[in-house]
C-alpha cells in the first residue's frame, strides 16, 4: 500500500477551517480595547506592549504584509540603523545588532522585522491585514471610539462598481500609526474636528526626540505615534529613523494604558 505523508483532508474542510476561524476571530475583535491603524514598527511596538498587559488589541493593515518600512532600512538596502537608546529595544526583542560608531547601531532588516512581528503575535495581538481604514467612528463630544474599514481590494475597484459598504469596528481607544499619511488624524481634519499643522518647517538632526516627545492623545480617543506624529505637529520630517518609531510605539502604549484605566 502506498504510504502518504499528509493526512487525508478534503477541500471543503480546508475552506471551512479558514472561514470559521477567521469569522470567529473577526467577530470577537469587532470590539476591542485598542484598535491600531497601521502595522509598521511603531504600531507593532505599541500593540505588543498593550497585548502584554492583557489588553485586547487589533491592528488594521492595508497591505498583505506587516512591518511597514521596517523590512528595508533605506534606499532598498535592508540594514536598519537606530541611535542609542533605541538598541535597548532591539536587545529586548532578541534582535542581533552591532555598534558601528558611538551611539549608532545597525541590525538586519528582515531579522529585526520578523522578530518584532513575532513578538506582537506572541503577546496576543490580532491582525486584520488587507484591510484599509476608511473613516472614524465618533460619539458624544466627537470622541473617537472606533474605525470604519473595508477590504483593501475594494479601494482599487473602479468607482462605478464600488458600492461595497464598509463595516465598523469599535474600541476604547484608536491609535494612528499610519506613517507620513497620518490617515486617521487627516480624517478628523477633513471633518473639521482638528486642525493639523502641516509639514515641518525645517530639518534638524535631533528630530527623533520630538517624535517621541509629541507622541500622545491628539484628540479624545485618538493617540498618534510614529511618523504620523511629525505630520500631525509639523515636526521636521527627515530626521527620524527606527529608534524613534520603536520608542514612540512604547510611549503610545503607556498613554493608552493611562487613558483607558
Amino acid at each position, binding site marked *: 500500500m502506498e504510504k502518504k505523508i499528509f493526512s487525508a483532508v478534503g477541500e471543503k474542510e480546508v475552506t471551512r477551517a479558514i472561514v470559521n476561524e477567521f469569522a470567529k476571530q473577526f467577530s470577537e475583535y469587532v470590539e476591542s480595547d485598542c484598535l491600531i491603524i497601521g502595522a509598521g514598527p511603531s504600531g507593532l511596538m505599541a500593540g505588543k506592549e498593550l497585548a502584554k498587559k492583557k489588553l485586547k488589541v487589533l491592528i488594521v493593515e492595508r497591505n498583505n504584509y506587516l512591518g511597514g518600512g521596517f523590512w528595508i532600512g533605506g*534606499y532598498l538596502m535592508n540594514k536598519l540603523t537606530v541611535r542609542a537608546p533605541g538598541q535597548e529595544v532591539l536587545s529586548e526583542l532578541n534582535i542581533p545588532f552591532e555598534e558601528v*560608531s558611538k551611539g*549608532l547601531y545597525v541590525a538586519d532588516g528582515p531579522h529585526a522585522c520578523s522578530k518584532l512581528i513575532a513578538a506582537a503575535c506572541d503577546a496576543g495581538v490580532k491582525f486584520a491585514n488587507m484591510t484599509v481604514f476608511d473613516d472614524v467612528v465618533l460619539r458624544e463630544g466627537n470622541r473617537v471610539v472606533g474605525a470604519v474599514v473595508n477590504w483593501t481590494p475594494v479601494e482599487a475597484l473602479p468607482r462605478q462598481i464600488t458600492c461595497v459598504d464598509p463595516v465598523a469596528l469599535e474600541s476604547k481607544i484608536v491609535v494612528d500609526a499610519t506613517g507620513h499619511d497620518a490617515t486617521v488624524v487627516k480624517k478628523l481634519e477633513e471633518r473639521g474636528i*482638528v*486642525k*493639523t*499643522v*502641516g509639514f*515641518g*518647517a*525645517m530639518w*534638524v*538632526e*535631533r*528630530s527623533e*526626540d*520630538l517624535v517621541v*516627545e*509629541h507622541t*500622545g*492623545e*491628539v*484628540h479624545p480617543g485618538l493617540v*498618534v505615534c510614529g511618523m504620523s506624529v511629525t505630520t*500631525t*505637529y*509639523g*515636526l*521636521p520630517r527627515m*530626521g527620524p529613523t527606527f529608534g524613534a518609531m520603536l520608542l514612540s510605539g512604547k510611549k503610545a502604549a503607556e498613554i493608552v494604558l493611562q487613558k483607558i484605566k
Partner: protein
Amino acid sequence: MRIPSFIYLYDSGKTESLNLNEISQYLKNIFKKSKIQIRDDIITCYLSNFFFKEREKVIDNLANQMTKIKVREIEIKNTVFEPLQGEIEYEKKRLSESGNKSFGILYDGFELMTILSKLIAKEESDFSYCHIVFTNQLFSTWDEGDLRYHARVSVYGFPSVISTTGIVEAPAKPREFYLKKQLWIDIYTLKEEFRGRFIDYDDLRMTEVMKGYVLQAIFYHITGNPFCKDKNCRLYNAHWQEEVIQAQLNKNSEYCKKHQKIIKQFGTENFKNEYI
C-alpha cells in the same frame, strides 16, 4: 544711552559647552564698573517667584503663549493657529523641566523676546539693567526682502536673546556641505567631513564664540547698533559659519580699530557717547 550698571546673564539650561563664568570674566575686563551676575535659565528664575500651586497655572499660560509663536511655515508670515493639545503638552513639559530642551521647533524671535520681556521684574526694567538670555530654543525672524523666515543666532532688545541652537543651525555651512547633503550623504558622515568648519552642538568653541554675541547685545543696549562692517571684528553680523569663525575665533584682531577704542573707553570715566 549709558553703560548698564547691571548685566545679567541667564543660562540656557543644559548647554554644557557654554561656560558663563568665562563669559562673565570677559565682560568684567571690559565693563569694570558694572555688576555682572549669572542667573539660572530665565524660565526657572521666573517660576521661582511662585508657590508650587500657582506654578502649574503659570506654566500652562506660558506654554499656551509659546505654542502660538511657533513658525508653522517658513514662507508664510505667522498666522495664529489654535494649538493642538499635544503641542501644549510638549511645551508644558519643556517649561517645567529645569534645563529644558528644545530641538527642531522654530519660534518667532521677536515674539519670543516679547514673551520673555514680561518675565523680567519691574524693578529691573530700566536702562541701567541689561538682560541677556541664553536659550536653546531655535528662532527666526521674518525677512521682508525675500518674504520668508530666517533662523537667527540672536535678537537684540529687552532682553536680548541668544540661541545656542541658533549658532549651529542659523549661519550657513559651506556651500559644498549642502551640495553633498543633496546627494543623500547622511548627516553624521557629512559633519565628520566638515568638522571644524562650522560650530556644532556641544562644540568646545561655543563659549569663545558667544563672547562676541554677548558684546553685540551690550552694544545694542548702549548704542542701538550691535554690528560692525569689518569681517574681522567680533561685532560683525555673520551669515556664514566661516564668517562666524573668522570674526569670533581669529585672535590676531579681536575688534576693529574703531571698536577697540570704544571698548577701551567703556572701562573708564571718560566714556562719552560721542565715541559711537
